[in-house]
């Protein structure tokens, strides 16, 4: 079978311990310019507050050892830069390098959030330009760039809804969330002080509009919808859904995690959405960096603007931009300062690179997903057959007959040189394989992926053991997660002593 693995071959990688295991007193990797003022005596000024011995256990290594340590670790990671990263709902697209360059410029990375605003006009113009672009792309009317990530964007959005309803006299009790939603949606609703009512999808994976009509009462504050849904399917009746919520005074929140399917093709603002968040680290190419940072701007209709978090970016009569902190109806602040500015810079650089051509990125993303779907349909079970947008969800029901599940297939994909797709999500598809190729993949890369998935399906039928015990080519095999959780080891400790506070 190994001749079928075209994308990857074995190579040697370096072993490396923990940085703490390389330490030896006296080694150092950083030297300071000499102190040019008199040395103050901390023991005298600080007394009992003084930490005299330095930080016990801190590394003592040289510069080359630091470089080698982290370079070796890096080679144990898969990355977009190495190939397709088809995680569904994660939009792992190319992270343009010019974005990294401009975010590090002097005058960009060096700016302090508390410096005078007259000396920050460049930063504020960047934020203003990004606001305008995101409003144009979403068709919304007001925006905040403050939330640090998607989940915080969701919270901001729900707090806006709550503040608006409260002002009208009743914040209401419930937020409706489809069973296909991301876990952050229900977790967020609780922090915003709402009860969660889960709603079941109908047989095609869409929101059950008739059912919805029954449960939308004066108690419902909002419906949180992901569109396209986590099945990669556009909610065809979204206009109707918005209408029936609005008729009862409830609002429509859209989780913008899947905006990569829509940019340039349709606009949430036109669909009847009242408030939504965007994930700049998904649709707008800022790097995931092993889990973050992100940014989760929240765009709204005009009537929610008075409630936006402070500070709000405004244009003064003299044409200068300013951050305004006093707004009587504001929900407050959701994080310190004005947002993950460095992430905003990268997102704007991405939008400027495309301009209106961002539509082409959307089209290519949808083209790739459908191309993969076409070639894998039948080989893998397709539980929902409505047209796919930017991602496609299969199930492992065919392979299950031989005892092979989605996690096994995912792990075997590693041997074929690919990162796994998203496994076991959305929850409404038992044994889900959720595949999102993004626009960054060439036809050649898609073909290699299709070949790999077909080969694994064959293996699952003829030699299931090789799939069930995969991966076979990684530094470590499947790790014992049960012991990791039962007896957590969450930090390194020196063998000779345990560090107490010094």
């Amino acid at each position, binding site marked *: 079978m190994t001749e079928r693995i075209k994308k990857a071959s074995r190579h040697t990688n370096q072993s490396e311990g*923990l940085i703490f295991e390389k330490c030896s007193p006296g080694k150092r*990797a*950083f030297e*300071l310019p000499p*102190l*040019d003022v008199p040395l103050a005596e*901390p023991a005298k000024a600080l007394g009992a507050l003084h930490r005299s011995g*330095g930080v016990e256990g*801190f590394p003592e290594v040289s510069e080359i050892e*630091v470089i080698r340590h982290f370079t070796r*670790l*890096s080679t144990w*990671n*898969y*990355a*977009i830069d190495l190939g397709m990263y088809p995680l569904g709902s994660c939009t792992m697209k190319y*992270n343009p390098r010019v974005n990294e*360059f*401009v975010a590090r410029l002097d*005058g960009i*990375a*060096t*700016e302090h*959030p508390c*410096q*005078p605003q007259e000396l920050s006009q*460049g930063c504020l113009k*960047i934020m203003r330009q990004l606001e305008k672009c995101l409003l144009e792309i979403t068709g919304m009317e007001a925006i905040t760039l403050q939330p640090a990530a998607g989940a915080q964007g969701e919270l901001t959005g729900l*707090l806006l809804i709550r503040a608006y309803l409260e002002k009208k006299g009743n914040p209401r009790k419930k937020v409706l969330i489809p069973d296909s939603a991301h876990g*952050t949606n229900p977790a*967020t609703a609780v922090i915003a*002080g709402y009860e969660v009512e889960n709603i079941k999808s109908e047989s095609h994976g869409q929101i059950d509009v008739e059912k919805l009509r029954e449960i939308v009462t004066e108690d419902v504050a909002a419906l949180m919808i992901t569109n396209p849904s986590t099945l990669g399917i556009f909610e065809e009746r979204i206009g109707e859904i918005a209408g029936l919520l609005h008729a009862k005074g409830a609002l429509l929140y859209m989780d913008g995690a899947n905006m990569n399917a829509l940019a*340039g093709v349709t606009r949430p603002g036109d669909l009847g959405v009242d408030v939504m968040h965007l994930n700049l680290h998904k649709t707008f190419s800022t790097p*995931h960096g092993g889990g*973050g940072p992100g940014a989760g701007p929240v765009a709204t209709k005009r009537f929610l603007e008075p409630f936006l978090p402070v500070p709000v970016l405004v244009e003064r009569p003299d044409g200068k931009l300013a951050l305004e902190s006093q707004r009587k109806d504001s*929900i407050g*602040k*959701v994080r310190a300062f004005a947002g993950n*500015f*460095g992430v905003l810079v990268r997102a704007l*650089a991405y939008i*400027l*690179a495309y301009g*209106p*051509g961002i539509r082409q*990125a959307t089209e290519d993303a*949808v083209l790739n997903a459908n*191309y993969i779907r076409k*070639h894998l349909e039948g080989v893998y079970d397709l539980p929902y057959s409505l047209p796919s947008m930017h991602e496609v969800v299969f199930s492992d029901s065919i392979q299950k007959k031989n005892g092979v599940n989605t996690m096994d297939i995912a*792990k075997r994909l590693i041997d074929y040189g690919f990162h796994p797709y998203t496994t076991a999500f959305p929850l409404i598809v038992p044994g889900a394989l959720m595949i999102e190729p993004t626009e960054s993949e*060439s*036809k050649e890369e898609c073909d290699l992926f299709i070949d790999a998935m077909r080969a694994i399906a064959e293996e699952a039928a003829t030699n299931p053991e090789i799939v069930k015990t995969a*991966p076979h080519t990684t*530094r470590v*095999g499947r790790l014992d997660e049960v*012991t*990791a*959780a039962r007896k957590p080891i969450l*930090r390194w400790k020196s063998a000779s002593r345990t560090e107490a506070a*010094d």
Partner: protein
Amino acid sequence: MRYLPKSPAEREQMLAAIGAKSIDELFSEIPERFRLRQALSLPGPLSETEIIAYFKDRAAENSVGYTSFVGGGVYNHLRSVVTDAILQRGEFLTSYTPYQAEIAQGTLQAIFEFQTLMCQLTGQEIANASMYDGSTATTEAVLMAERLTGRHRVLVARSVHPEYRQVLRTYAKNSGLQVEEIPYVAAVGTVDTAALKAAIKADVAAVVVQSPNYFGAIEPVAALAGEVQASGALLVVAVAEAVSLGLIRPPAEADIVAMEAQSLGLPPSYGGPFAGVIASREKFVRQMPGRLAGQTTDGDGRRGFVLTLATREQHIRREKATSNICTNQALCALAATVHMCLLGKEGLREIAHQNFSKAQFALAELEKIPGVKRAFSAPFFNEFTIELPRSVRIVNAHLVREKIIGPLAIGADYPELTKRGLVCVTETAPRTEIERFVAALRRALEQPV
């Protein structure tokens, strides 16, 4: 378009394979009335050269060429070029959250090292893989204390960063958590322990102090702990200037430490991205928010790392999760990890010493100006509050003309503290610039009103 790896012919081939006549067919589920028929009105497309030019133009409209003495929760420190060289390795930069452990051991081991370094720095037993920033870490620490104690009142020192307190209020508003503020001692600048004592009742979940606090003053954490814990409440200590821990006793007595790691290798970047972190006691681990990396082994007994205790998190527990956080600040935490490895034990101690010495020097020079006084008597690290004989805003207007960004006015957040400003002096300020700042401030005060 240079980011899109397809030729027109390839697009046609792919469409043909799908059996679609046009790309439009793939969007057929979107009702016609919602389809955009005109191009979006966006600037661009721009070449790489034009993108760089656009951002360089914006950079020139900022504070390049100015010397700043502003801290207030964000600190300018030396950073080795090595940190960015490592961060820009695509294997770190362009990888996802390490759910697939076998091909993410690099990220996972680095997180494990970050957690360890954070424990060493704070004197705590466990630390998580990162929160958004210091303000949300502080808020999440309070929510954690609420879950641990089952109590719903929190006492927050007014000397905690005003923005941290604002964020806490935003989150608290709808969760049934009552927030009360505790004053500081006017002449000292640290929390009023008598007022605190009087406010602690059996319904208090947490007491929150920051050290060094917003005024730069170091709070007596060890002394506070006994009182707080005797009441059954938890002591939450926020640390906004992590470099201080190279010289100042760590808040080991605290139950939860909420830290901002920005000053460990991250540029100010107009307010973010930074890295918050929560460190705590081992026995509280199951109420910890955010991701945790743990050590384990594979089938052959090889050491490896995985994300663990995920049953606390939103993707498993949904509405019953400890927090809604998903995406965190992983790459920023990696920056802090690399930076701390570079500094090492000696480097951190030296940097901390330099900050301390320079701040002491600057204060002594400032106090030579008639009418300029130290506002609070408590010991400080690299930031202190001064009292001026006239408005900070007017003084700063003069300083800006000399290309100096001067004391951070705090009167808007503390109406009783007009004419007071925060001055921060780190190792990045050469003596000549400190002296220029002092001379300019003297001139500013000599100007007729």
